[in-house]
């Protein structure tokens, strides 16, 4: 059992620490045909405590110029009648702006849908016109609290290297995986790696390959879900010249390329039943035929398959061959989700920060407490792959030695500023709570109204009406 990863605060860095007064630089942008003068005056009157530096941009193009030229903490933008389009544009524009300023959107009677979309995009707040002092002051206070962060040093990580990849983690769940990997690698058995998207199935497969009897051969990976169905067969088995339109030359397939090595078939559940039959034959007979060819070619490969689906359920639904499943699942390894790995998140974060800092020639030695909080609070649907992406982007935009919350994507930052978390007026109205719940269920069902209505236990027409009412 490993002790939890502890991270102690380090000396204050360039950004203001807790308790220090941060000077906020605010750019006020008027909507189309409007003037920012009134807003500017309000801002100065209501928050004139010497801690604000405010400027205006008369229109969007000039705002873009100002954003490119200087660093701003906040953009206070008035949305036009096309509030949704404007909001999407602002979110996109601020991604590329210096210092990743936060957005406070101002709109005439913003709909619940707009507010929810704004939250999801990491917008700090949506205020309605006419502007009220207490709302604006509260929004600015939230900006202040967000910009004060404390740096904590990154822990040292000892990865188990797998070629250019690495297995990182000390959680009990991962220790079990390491043990199984070590046991299975020495044999030539076919392995099925199961786990949610982004849990590291290919890294596990590579670890088996490099530590197994086929290590001297090639490791060839094929993503069965990425390749169009009509091309997958020729990709796997190859084809003879002229076998079909576009077969301009003989092609050696992945089975042959992996000769004496390992063939990794990722997302195997996405394969058609016809192709599954051909894979089964290749596994059983250890021979293949190129598309359009008549020659039988013997193949000696170790097969490792992976999936993020429940194959037993797919068998029940008739979408996956049972005989193939038992051929592939001689040994099954299940990879844990990032949520199941506890403090591995911190180790993985440290590992990726160092990896990308080296790649992008940055010197990053610490992460802020707030950034770490955001990382810990995130749901990580994409598991380690999502974390890796988030850290890579954060390293690219980081400008000093500490990775801060402002370097994280809007989606993560949005999670710290949801309506429910607001310090004042935090209690939601019934309508707000209902709209929020409907939005969550719709996101869960990928917008499928029938399924959402079933979960909510209401008629689909009622749901449609409520969606319209809340602007969802």
């Amino acid at each position, binding site marked *: 059992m490993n002790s939890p990863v502890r991270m102690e605060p380090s000396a204050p860095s360039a950004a203001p620490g807790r308790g220090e007064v941060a000077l906020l630089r605010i750019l006020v942008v008027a909507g*189309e045909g409007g003037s920012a003068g009134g807003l500017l005056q309000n801002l100065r009157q209501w928050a004139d405590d010497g801690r604000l530096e405010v400027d205006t941009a008369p*229109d*969007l*193009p000039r*705002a*873009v*110029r100002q954003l*490119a030229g200087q660093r701003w903490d906040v953009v206070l933008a008035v949305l036009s009648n096309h509030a949704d*389009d*404007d909001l999407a*544009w602002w979110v*996109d*524009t601020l*991604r*590329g702006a210096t210092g990743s300023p936060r957005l406070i959107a101002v709109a005439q009677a913003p709909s619940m849908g707009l507010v929810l979309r704004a939250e999801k995009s990491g917008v700090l707040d949506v205020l309605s016109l006419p502007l009220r002092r207490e709302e604006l002051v509260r929004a600015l206070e939230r900006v202040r609290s967000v910009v004060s962060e404390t740096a904590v040093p990154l822990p040292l990580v000892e990865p188990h290297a797998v070629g250019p990849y690495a297995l990182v983690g000390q959680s009990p769940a991962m220790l079990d995986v390491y043990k199984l990997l070590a046991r299975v690698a020495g044999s030539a058995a076919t392995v099925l790696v199961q786990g*949610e*998207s*982004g849990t590291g*199935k*290919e890294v596990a497969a590579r670890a088996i390959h490099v530590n197994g009897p086929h290590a001297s051969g090639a490791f060839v990976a094929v*993503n*069965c*879900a*990425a*390749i*169009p*169905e009509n*091309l997958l067969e020729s990709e796997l088995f190859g084809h003879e010249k002229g076998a079909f339109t576009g077969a*301009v*030359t003989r092609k050696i397939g992945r089975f042959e390329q992996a000769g004496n090595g390992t063939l990794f078939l*990722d*997302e195997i559940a*996405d394969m058609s039943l016809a192709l599954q039959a051909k894979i089964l034959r290749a596994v059983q007979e250890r021979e293949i035929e190129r598309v359009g060819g008549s020659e039988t070619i013997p193949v000696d490969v170790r097969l490792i398959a992976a999936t*993020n689906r429940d194959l037993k359920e797919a068998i029940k639904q008739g979408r996956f061959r049972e005989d193939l499943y038992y051929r592939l699942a001689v040994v099954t390894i299940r990879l844990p989700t990032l949520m199941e790995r506890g403090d591995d998140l911190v180790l993985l974060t440290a590992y990726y920060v160092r990896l990308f800092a080296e790649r992008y020639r940055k010197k990053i030695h610490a992460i802020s407490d707030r950034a770490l909080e955001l990382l810990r609070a995130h749901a990580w*649907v*994409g*598991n380690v*792959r*999502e974390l890796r992406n988030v850290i*890579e*982007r954060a390293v*690219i935009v980081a400008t000093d030695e500490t990775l801060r919350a402002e370097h994280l994507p809007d989606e993560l930052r949005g999670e710290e500023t949801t309506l429910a978390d607001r310090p004042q007026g935090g209690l939601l109205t019934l309508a707000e709570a209902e709209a929020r719940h409907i939005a969550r269920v719709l996101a*869960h*069902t*990928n*917008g*499928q*109204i*029938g*399924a959402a209505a*079933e*979960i909510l236990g209401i008629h689909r027409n009622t749901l*449609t009406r409520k969606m319209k009412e809340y602007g969802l």
Partner: protein
Amino acid sequence: MTGPPPVRVEKALALMPELEALTPLRALLVSIARPDEATVWSSSGPYLTLGKRGVHPDELRRRMPQAFQRITEHLQALFKGYVEALECQQRGDAPGVVVALLRAGRLEEQVGRHTQARNWYEVALRVAEALQDRRPEVEVLRALGYVCLALGEYAAGARHFQRSLALAEAEFDQAGATAASEGLGDVALAQGQWGGAQAWYSRGLRLAEAASDAPRAGRLERQLGVLARKQRDLAAAGEFLRRARERFEVAGVADEADEMARVLNEQGRLDAQLGRYTAASAAYREALAWAQRAPRDARLELSIRLNLAELDLEAGRLLEAEAELRRAEQVAIGGHVIRPLAQIYTLMGRLRGAQEDETGFVFFEQALELVKAVERSVATEAQVYHAYGLFRGRLGQQDEARAYLERARELFDSLGEAVERERVEAELRALSA
């Protein structure tokens, strides 16, 4: 509990016969297709294309009334246009007939039905030819010229613009002559005939200046800037673009936001060619801001985003390029703008090529599928084959590279596209060397 999984677009489209009547349904299906979150983060996520997105039959059914409404509105407008033409005919108002038919054709063009638009314009032309006043004919011929240009029928387009110009000059119709010159310049530019384009745009510019038509003059200067950039006269290109921008500023930017966006988009391309990455990026960002001010034009926005992505790609900023391309993909799918979608996938393929990722071929295959099966475009198909050939060559697959480049050359030949054909030819020679 959440019902069956969505159907992949590639499978959904395979079930749909190629029928004109189903075009709006195909458009609706594409526009509502989306990836599920698990797919985005799966290992196939980086290779996600339109074909791998999912659609729920339930959602398609739910959205059908909206599609029917749009179709009905479009048909109503067309029928109304025809009835107006008929009323004009009854009154003996032949110019009115031409105006009504032209309007109907423009409605067809707005929804991307270029062939149908041409049919309306051809009827309008027959009516206009019988008139004593030749100005309606000048206008119809110009409309025909542009629709031919959109269909890639350059020779036919040039013929219509030539006739429009001759008639306009005979009628002392300066605006008509200016517009026809611009059209002739556009055809020449599309075919890579720099000398011809230069002559026509310059002539148009002189006429526009004489008529104090600032917006038209600005547009022509922008096109001259495009031309100068393509001819690698970058100083001249910068000067033309500066003047174009000034013209629009004087003309009143509020009415010319889309033109400002186009000028800045071109300025970005010029800065990129000059190796000024930051300036190019700023120009594109400002172009997007102007585009945001103008009425929504997905094609304009996509053009800017594609340039921005290409800039990132060429600067080796692959993450940014990918993020921009994914945003552009969303705009294209939401707006059902298929040709730029094929360009987006071509760039995605190039990006994967830069990462030496062989599976990147799936993007070229998807782009070809789109331009062959969903919205035919020979010019885009040629560009895709060109990039596909380079991708294969980069991975050391010389035979396939040669085959794809030869196909690109054949397609550019069929279009009469001289400059691109020469580029492909040079790459084929390099491959054989």
